[in-house]
């Protein structure tokens, strides 16, 4: 008997039962009511073990921006101690949702998810901002920009347009915009000739088409396809729609749930057909592997999540067992590789570096930082642009000391490093592609 289809996310209350000590306090479970959220914040025991893990605290040094501080602010907001809507909104913005506070938390509370739920209530009571509405829809923006490319690149970067964007949606005019490509990744894929299979990775892989790869970074997608095909995989695309990460990170939980609902059945079906799902963007991968299982109480979604990986994690998992003629040619180079906070949170941080270290001649340094400070749209916003770069300075300094060419797997991270250091930043898949040319 086939299993039932995945139901839409239940928007009813799912908060932890007070006083019982269940394992799910503060975990992202979709929409929750006010009382549940208040109870969850009260299970933060304020021990402070999270404080030193927070990159924002590391830069700003004030108590309110610590993970514990956010829990206190949510609690004070809900009980009426803290009524100033602007202050509450800013406090919520200053959590980057990088999740570096999860590991040290002895009670297992996910403060970033409490903040998201706090943001949701804040939106409901104060109205969401235009900028949040826009930032939550990267796919739409990039499709429009891509459609009008190359004109859109010229127009979007003119001073009057940047000024308009700054004044309407708070996008800082100093922050470079992603480039819109005249050709799309999906068009390229439809007509591309598969690479010769050098390895014997006899697996079906569906490469997830995220909101950026199609019209902003098609070359990364192409490199990913080529490498996977050389490994021996049969590659298709999972062009199922936005995962909802951007909306979620703005506390627009209903919108994130709707985006997830719109494609979860497609994704699950792909996985159930025996195909692995591979995502290039770590935040999207983390959305599907850690948030979806909590949003859906479904064994099917759990199994889908188990078959889903970030690209470099996927490579790292399979390179050991791969046979045939797939091997790395020497690349005499020196790189400074920055991982992604959502990968580190899942103990997957070293995966890309593991892959790079297989390449003969390649010298790999790994800066030790918790987060680059970009955090999706955070670093675009006028009021946080300077803070974002100040948080990133620790990373920039370590890359300078390394002397290696900067590399990162996250779109935001690359943009941040590029802007902060005025340099080009590659995705590591490009080196892997160079090293594995037939």
């Amino acid at each position, binding site marked *: 008997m086939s299993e039932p289809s995945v139901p839409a996310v239940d928007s009813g209350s799912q908060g932890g039962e007070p006083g019982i*000590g269940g394992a799910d306090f503060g975990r992202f479970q979709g929409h929750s009511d006010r009382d549940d959220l208040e109870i969850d914040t009260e299970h933060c*025991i304020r021990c*402070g*073990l999270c404080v030193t893990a927070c990159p924002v605290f590391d830069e700003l040094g004030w*108590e309110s921006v610590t993970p514990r501080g956010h829990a206190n*602010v949510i609690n004070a907001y809900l009980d009426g101690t803290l009524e*100033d809507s602007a202050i509450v909104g800013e406090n919520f913005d200053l959590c980057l949702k990088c999740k570096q506070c999860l590991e040290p938390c*002895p*009670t297992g509370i996910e403060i970033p998810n409490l903040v998201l739920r706090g943001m949701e209530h804040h939106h409901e009571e104060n109205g969401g901002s235009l900028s949040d509405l826009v930032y939550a829809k990267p796919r739409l923006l990039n499709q429009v920009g891509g459609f009008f490319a190359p004109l859109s690149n010229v127009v979007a970067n003119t001073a009057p347009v940047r000024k308009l964007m700054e004044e309407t949606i708070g996008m800082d005019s100093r922050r470079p915009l992603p480039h819109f490509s005249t050709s799309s990744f999906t068009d390229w894929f439809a007509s591309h000739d598969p690479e010769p299979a050098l390895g014997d990775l006899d697996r079906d892989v569906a490469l997830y088409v995220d909101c950026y790869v199609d019209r902003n970074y098609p070359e990364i997608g192409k490199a990913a396809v080529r490498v996977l095909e050389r490994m021996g995989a049969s590659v298709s695309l999972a062009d199922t729609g936005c995962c909802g990460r951007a909306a979620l990170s703005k506390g627009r939980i209903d919108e994130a749930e709707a985006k997830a609902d719109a494609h979860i059945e497609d994704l699950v079906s792909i996985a159930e057909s025996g195909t692995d799902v591979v995502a290039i963007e770590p935040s999207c991968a983390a959305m599907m592997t850690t948030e979806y299982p909590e949003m859906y109480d479904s064994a099917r979604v759990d199994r889908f999540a188990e078959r889903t990986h970030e690209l470099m994690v996927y490579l790292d998992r399979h390179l050991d067992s791969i046979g045939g003629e797939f091997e790395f040619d020497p690349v005499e180079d020196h790189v400074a590789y920055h991982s992604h906070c959502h990968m580190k949170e899942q103990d997957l941080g070293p995966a890309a570096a593991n892959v790079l270290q297989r390449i003969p001649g390649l010298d790999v340094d790994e800066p030790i930082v918790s987060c680059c400070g970009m955090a999706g749209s955070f670093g675009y916003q006028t009021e946080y642009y300077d803070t974002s770069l100040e948080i990133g300075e620790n990373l920039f300094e370590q890359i300078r000391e390394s002397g290696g060419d900067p590399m990162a797997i996250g779109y935001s991270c690359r943009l941040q490093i590029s802007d902060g250091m005025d340099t080009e930043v590659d995705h590591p898949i490009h080196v892997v592609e160079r090293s594995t040319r037939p």
Partner: protein
Amino acid sequence: MSQSQPSGDELASSLASIVGNDDVTTRRDELVGYSRDAFPEDGVLPDAVVRVEDTSEVQAVLQYANERGLHVVPRAMGTSLTGSVVPVEGGIVMDMRPMDQILELNEDDMFARVQPGVRWETLNERAEEYGLHFPVDPGSSSVVTVCGMIATHASGMRAVKYGTTGDHTMDLEVVLADGTTFETGTRSIKNSAGYDLTSLLVGSEGTLGVITEATVRLTPLPERSRTFMALFDDLETAGELFVDVKQSNFDVSAMELLDRPLLETLQEGGFDVPTAEVMVLVELVGDRAFEESYDELTTLAAEGGAAVRESDDPEELWTARRSAYPSLVRRCTHPITGDIGVPISTLPEMLRTIREIRDEMDLPVSVLGHAGDGNLHPVILASEDTLERGKDAHDRMCEAAVDLGGTVTTEHGVGIEKNHLMEYQYGEEGVAVMRRLKRALDPNNVLNPGKITPSEENAHE
């Protein structure tokens, strides 16, 4: 108090003239954060928060506050379990975290000079490069500051061998409420020159002066260590083991007690700990004749009724032990954390008394503790409905500890949680002497009022 209280804007402006605009705030989200610490009950919102970067700023802020009778609460990581760093009457919170430099680490004389924002972990990372450590080991060691430990006289799991923070505090630079700044000690191992002002300031919770620098003693890292579990059928028999070990000459560095409810909680949390009525986790350190000592100690435990087991993964056990407190308190909404200490020989009796109080008052109580030095943490898992009963039970346990020659708090400090118990421990005269000391050093009651002795008693006519 020689001047009227400034308005919020005046206060912020005056403080900004001392510490700079970027280091003073009256934003309400900050005030909320600085009104709370790890004690479950909230304090009162302060009027302003300042971050200080050197001793001269501390002096200037205190002089300003002293002239106006404003309260000042010094604070660093805010990990107090007793409300030691939450304001009870508004005023200024002074965040010491920007003063975070290790000023000196002397390998030959084995000491370090630190500012108040230096964390335990940071100091130990540096000390380890020289084969040394600051061995006092509180549960919050990953974030707590060394000076915060001094201010609350913290200790932790390894006090059984290394003693308390006070035992490792050699000298302090202290700023009084009127800005007077002085040194309390020396760098000599021994010092019999006059009053021991260092000891007076240790555990004073910022009520007498603000610590701006501290010299702490370091010790060599042990060459070897080995951990075993001693499992008992009842608490009292386990208690006898502590007496036996204390009377022997083993180099035991930690001896931790975990009861059945706690072990079950840890098992639910995924930790690989055994099922037993009581587990005692014992760590032996040393170098010469280590194996012989280990064999003798485990034999002693077995003869005392324990089932002795050695773990393949002692780190996992110590991680479980460190997780014990948070694992427990998340099981309830209103935890009450006891911190009593008794003479080792009375541990079995104290454990019996805790059980009797638990049964009489019908409350869930779990016991953990650094029992090797007579320190027990009975944790009362209260709810909103049983909170008052829980507080009564806690008071009874504290009074029982005092009756056995012990103390109401061994390492968490007094804060706002236990100040009502001070008279029971020291009597009216003892507390009166403390008040006289406080008045002598802080006549305007500027520094962290309401802590150690109750606020209303601390007020000045």
